[in-house]
């Protein structure tokens, strides 16, 4: 489904990604862990098409298409979804209008009929239960004045409504209390099927207890320096990143 080959990228002259290789197949859950500043969000942003990054080398193929050539909205319509680490506030745009517009654009692209306001609201209400979101948030402007946790739930709500093929969750767990963490993880799990895939970026093993990964990768200094199964996450939790750093240093 997604294949990243030797991806090198920089921003404002700083080399951040230094050769990323990653294969994701339908039905899989991948977790990326790594110390602060190692380039996790950068990778996520590049996959979603944020401007400002310069891809210097490598390629990203998504469902047979060269992802890097597509505009951000085209990627979204193809099924790439990024739950942002720091979701932006958009004053004046209500959650409902925003989400309805997005959904209909994606549906159009998939050859489905557009939903009218009533059908849309019915769908959204159903999905809100999934993430246990306060219905009053729906009428408010996108993320404006939302608490950290509310923003994260809102991201997952959008994901639940838009039904992406590849969901990238950038530290969706940070800022969530324990109950919310479970709810969000359950939400993600219930959306999982054999055709879609999930890439979670996280610092904590806790999320992975609920959202069990098939693969765990460690990103360090712009490279994936270690991959394994879910036990790798446990090992990291126990030992920290130092041994990875040493190992990465040795292999250089």
């Amino acid at each position: 489904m997604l294949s990243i080959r030797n991806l090198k990228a920089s921003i404002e002259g700083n080399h951040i990604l230094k050769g990323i290789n990653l294969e994701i197949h339908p039905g899989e859950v991948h977790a990326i862990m790594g110390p602060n500043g190692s380039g996790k969000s950068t990778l996520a942003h590049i996959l979603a098409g944020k401007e400002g990054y310069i891809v210097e080398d490598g390629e990203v193929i998504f469902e047979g298409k060269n992802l890097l050539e597509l505009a951000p909205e085209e990627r979204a319509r193809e099924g790439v979804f990024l739950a942002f680490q720091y979701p932006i506030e958009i004053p004046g745009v209500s959650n409902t209008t925003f989400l309805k517009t997005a959904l209909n654009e994606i549906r159009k692209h998939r050859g489905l009929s557009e939903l009218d306001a009533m059908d849309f609201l019915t769908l959204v209400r159903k999905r809100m239960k999934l993430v246990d979101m306060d219905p009053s948030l729906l009428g408010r402007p996108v993320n404006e004045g939302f608490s950290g946790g509310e923003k994260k739930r809102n991201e997952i709500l959008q994901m639940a409504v838009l039904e992406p093929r590849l969901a990238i969750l950038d530290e969706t767990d940070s800022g969530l209390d324990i109950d919310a963490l479970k709810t969000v993880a359950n939400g993600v799990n219930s959306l999982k099927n054999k055709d879609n895939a999930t890439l979670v970026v996280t610092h904590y093993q806790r999320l992975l207890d609920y959202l069990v990964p098939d693969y765990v990768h460690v990103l360090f200094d712009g490279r994936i320096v270690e991959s394994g199964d879910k036990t790798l996450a446990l090992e990291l939790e126990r030992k920290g990143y130092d041994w990875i750093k040493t190992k990465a240093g040795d292999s250089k």
Partner: protein
Amino acid sequence: MIKTDPESAAFCQHLHPLFHDQSSHIRNFRQQSLEMLQSSPFPALKHEEWKYTDLSELAKQLPVSPVLSDFQNLSVNDVYPYSFNQMKSHVMVFVNGHFTPQLSNINKLGRNIVAENLFSAAKRNPEDIKLYLGKADKKGNDYFSYLNGAFFTDGAYIRIPDNYQSEIPIHLLFLTKGNGELRYSAARNLIIMGKNSSVTLVETYGSLDDRPVLTNSVTEVFNGENSLLRHHILQLQNERSHYFGSTNITIPANSRYQNTWVSLGSKISRNDVDAALTGAGSYCQLYGLYAGRHDQLMDNRTVISHRSPHATSNQVYKGILDGFSRGIFNGKILVEQKAQKTEAHQLNRSLILSDKAHADSKPQLKIFADDVKCSHGATVGQLDKNAMFYLQSRGVSKEIARSMLTFAFANDVVDSIILGPVRFYLYKKLFNRFGRDWGSEEDFESLYKQEE
């Protein structure tokens, strides 16, 4: 001897007070205003406060005071479009500055509230008129303020008692009716708040036809200690009319005043807001939206004077300029020497949508106290890049994202209006201007109704 400015004198030759003033206070006030008016020059581009607003075309016309027939044969249907879908409110309707009780609805007001026309109040409450008339209007040297003072044809007098809290807003509706000439419509309003009270006041300026009218209103607001006044002003006149309105507010200790100004109408409009924070703990919030198209000119001038320590003010004015329109923001924050611990912020943002539109911004800080936190910002330019990306990353096309964000840019100000029906009315107007790229009006309505 008063030196008379010939252009000034010529401009008002067909103006006169509609009725003979019974009240000596009003008579005196008119006389003073007239004298000041005659010595004030007619506004021109060379005057700093009129730097971007060219009135030379207007100067060639002669406004004419209303006549009695203007007010006859009007029915409730005529004012329905401005009822915000029959929002529950106490309404006073003025046509060309003249109070029309048959269209108004102020019977159910509480016992201690007074809401009547200024001329009746002058009979019943002469002391108040003496005490308040012209006292919040401290803008020396302003032509249109004096013009109103000399020739206003009535206005609203609202007196809110102490300890009064009401959910039901008071709506002052100023409508214009034209004829062949440039009709002059001038109301003079006094709003006097008691202590510990809380009220929402809506002022709407609209047109009953598409003929040109020169509206020239002055509202003086005396907020009460520890009170909250929400004041929403909508300028929705037809695009052949002119609007010169000023709102002058004094905000005493611990009182809060919030003003939202939304301007969509008139060929030339000038909105003057002059607020003085006179007591500790006072708070003033000004929101403004001016959305111009065609050849509209929208001029906004605000002055916030911090005269007391420990007061806070905040201003957000936004302009969206399309077509050949011009939008002006001229805002001043003045902090007097004794006004220590002031916090004052001001923001003006404009979007230009066409290559023939203009935006001028003149945010000013004049500060004489040192222990203050003051800031202003002004931007003219594009929509927020990060917001654009967020929308696109959810599958929304660039064009639609732009239209959504333009609509949102405006909504932000409308959101500060506390009354759902008024908000909805404005959302719809703005949606029709900016949001049409991304949905039908029906869809829009059903979505927003859900939210209200």
